[in-house]
């Protein structure tokens, strides 16, 4: 096997900007995914909470739960690759299109699609996908805390919101952490799928070289190492969030 690393030399900037793009994409997706995940996770775990007193609120919650179920089912049950193509080539042209955009049309739409289109679609698809998984992580985390804990909080006079905030979530978070880190790592890796819509991220840099030279070891090995560095960095950072043994009550 002969490796011709020199073919990568001229493409250096492509890999650097690609790496930066991948980092931006995953950071946006992780943050948005977390926000979505917490929201939908709280909604879907609200079944265990005492029913709201006002009828309107109870109905609103019911609708929200049905929506959450549909959302999570769709985004967990279909491939991310398909979601990315769907968002970029079907949903976005409907909303943002120079001639027929519902949200944005004309010159502004053209400008937006050209400079941010692929990034926006990619980040949106990744966030929605991550949100679905994270909401399940949250639901499972919350439900894993024994019901006695919330009941004890109520009997101490805490409201449901306070019980969640001070009693349940802090404990649940510790249990959710490994799953959340997993999701973050998955996101970093899956961001490579966004190259399908022409975003110049890390995988696209490798595809460009592979396309130009029909050589696969050098470009793909290079980005493998770069992805590995990113995922390792994330798991190292996450390690610092984990409680040391003496805080875990051992």
């Amino acid at each position, binding site marked *: 096997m002969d490796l011709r690393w020199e073919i990568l030399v*001229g493409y250096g900037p*492509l890999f650097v900007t690609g790496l930066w793009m991948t980092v931006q994409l995953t950071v946006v997706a992780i943050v948005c995914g977390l926000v979505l995940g917490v929201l939908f996770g709280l909604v879907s775990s609200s079944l265990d909470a005492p029913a709201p007193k006002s009828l309107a609120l109870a109905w609103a919650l019911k609708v929200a739960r049905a929506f959450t179920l549909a959302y999570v089912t769709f985004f967990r049950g279909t491939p991310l690759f398909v979601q990315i193509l769907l968002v970029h080539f079907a949903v976005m*042209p409907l909303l943002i299109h120079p001639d027929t955009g519902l949200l944005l049309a004309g010159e502004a739409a053209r400008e937006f699609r050209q400079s941010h289109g692929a990034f926006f679609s990619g980040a949106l698809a990744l966030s929605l996908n991550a949100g679905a998984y994270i909401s399940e992580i949250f639901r499972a985390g919350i439900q894993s805390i024994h019901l006695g804990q919330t009941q004890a909080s109520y009997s101490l006079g805490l409201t449901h919101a306070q019980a969640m905030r001070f009693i349940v979530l802090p404990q649940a978070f510790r249990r959710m952490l490994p799953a959340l880190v997993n999701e973050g790592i998955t996101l970093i890796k899956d961001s490579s799928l966004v190259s399908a819509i*022409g975003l110049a991220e890390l995988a696209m840099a490798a*595809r460009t070289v592979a396309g130009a030279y*029909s050589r696969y070891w050098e470009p793909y090995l290079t980005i493998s190492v770069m992805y590995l560095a990113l995922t390792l960095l994330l798991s190292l950072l996450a390690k610092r969030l984990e409680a040391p043994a003496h805080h875990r009550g051992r």
Partner: protein
Amino acid sequence: MNTLSTRRFLQASALLITGFLLSACGKKAETPAPAASAPVAAASAPAPAPAKVYVVGTDAAYAPFESENTQKEIVGFDIDVVKAVAQKAGIEVKFVNTPWEGIFNTLAQGDRDLLVSAITITDERKQTMDFSNPYFDAQQLIAVKANSKVTKFDELKKLKVGVQTGTTGDEVVTKLQGKTSANIKRFESTPLALKELESGGVDAVVADNGVIINYVTNNSGSKFKTVADKAFQNEQYGIAVKKGNADLLGKINKGLADIKADGTYDKIYAQYFGAAPAAAPAASAASK
């Protein structure tokens, strides 16, 4: 009851595992037998000479050259040409849809015997594979929105341009804008790049004329216009074989000459592109 069913389950799984292990051993014991008899079969094989079916790789997302129809058959100009060539050459062929990215590798690794996929013959590609005589004249074409001011290729220098990764369109735009230009947006297929043009994500798409024209014909709502530029070199498509496979290449070239001589090629050409190729070269006929 509970413990009983657990025990049952354990027994059942133990049985299953032993069974699996036994069958695995059995298989292992069996394999040498056919292997041993294989040489015999091989030795006796030349007598009936089982016809080798040549596997043809093609990226069937490139109408009208190759695409998949509703019956999952791969159809198109290239396909008909190769079928006709194979018939003349007396060989059997089977088409396998192969993604463009990595298609050349399948040849080198022996997964495919032939490639036909609107592949332009270039000097770079000749280093890693052998090409038949050209069977189609092609040219790059620029697709832009109907109201675009672009009149020639040079004007794309500062614009966002969509291409299919690793195609000759990719190559010429890369040459124009530089290897690391952020303005080149690479897509998996030319139709995806054109879709992006339709929704305003790129200013132009550079790709083979046949495919762009086919897209425009099929998407009358797309409001594209095409711009031809003399700066684009004429390109020729060839059928690729593994480097050094002179035997197969000879058969292909002979078949190609035959179908050109007896008018089969013209018939296929007219079916897909209308005009007769001999009267007007394909490139100019298509791009005007």
